[in-house]
């Protein structure tokens, strides 16, 4: 599993990588996952619908919510209202 952060000046950058089935690696992934959420990031896992094959995204707020077979978790800054609409 790779934790990737979308950032200005980077595109995405790798935060952490590891196998969540291995205890040490799971701990490192969990630590970085929490750190990103503590910094105010939103997180999502790209998924595919089992029936239709359609690609979707699953927002996650807890490491336990990440599907076991997830390859990537993407982080990005939480939304903020953009520029006020012109009159």
């Amino acid at each position, binding site marked *: 599993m790779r934790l*990737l*952060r*979308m*950032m*200005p*000046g*980077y*595109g*995405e*950058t*790798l*935060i*952490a990588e590891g196998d969540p089935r291995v205890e040490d690696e799971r701990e490192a992934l969990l630590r*970085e996952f929490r*750190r990103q959420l503590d*910094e105010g990031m*939103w997180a*999502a896992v*790209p998924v595919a619908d089992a029936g239709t094959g*359609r*690609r*979707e*995204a*699953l*927002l996650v707020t807890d490491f336990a919510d990440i599907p076991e077979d997830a390859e990537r978790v*993407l982080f*990005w*800054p*939480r*939304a*903020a*209202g*953009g*520029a*006020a*609409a*012109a009159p």
Partner: protein
Amino acid sequence: MGGLGVVLLVVTLGALAAVMGWPARDGAARRRRRRSLPSWVREPPVPPEEADRRSLELLRSVVNPEEWDMFRDLGFICVTGRRGGRGDGPPRYRYLIYPHLPVVALLPRSMAPVREYCVQFPDRTAAGTPLLPRGDDVLAKWMTLRADEDRLLAYANVGGAGCQVPLATVERDIARLARWEARRRRAVPAP
């Protein structure tokens, strides 16, 4: 002559000091930039064109193939919302997702533009622009809309249609989308 010599000496020493001092100042600035990055950042920033290329590649790898084709050909993605107007009814809106512009909400049948949802994802972790590259901006909107439409709309500033994306642009893009979809239907007949 002696006065001129002193002046020349002062100018020369000044220029020498400036030249010798430059790398030190440059290095200090680089160190400051490095120090300002959090520990989990493992690489230096890349040029804007490379960041843009990487963001588009990530977008391509996450969205559906026809959505990527749409973005590549038209410069925006049209997605259908999941929020029903009444309970579990048909979707209330379709959305045009542009990079670095508000999300435009459309009535699903008539495709009439009804609202703009102004939303950004500012990130001040690194020096420079706080805006995500184009592909990341579109992907952040796409993922949030597809996974939790209400969440994105709740964080946005709501404006009337045409406030920031001119209505003429929206209408032109809806017409381009209709032609694009018709071309695809002809090229790839439905099963």
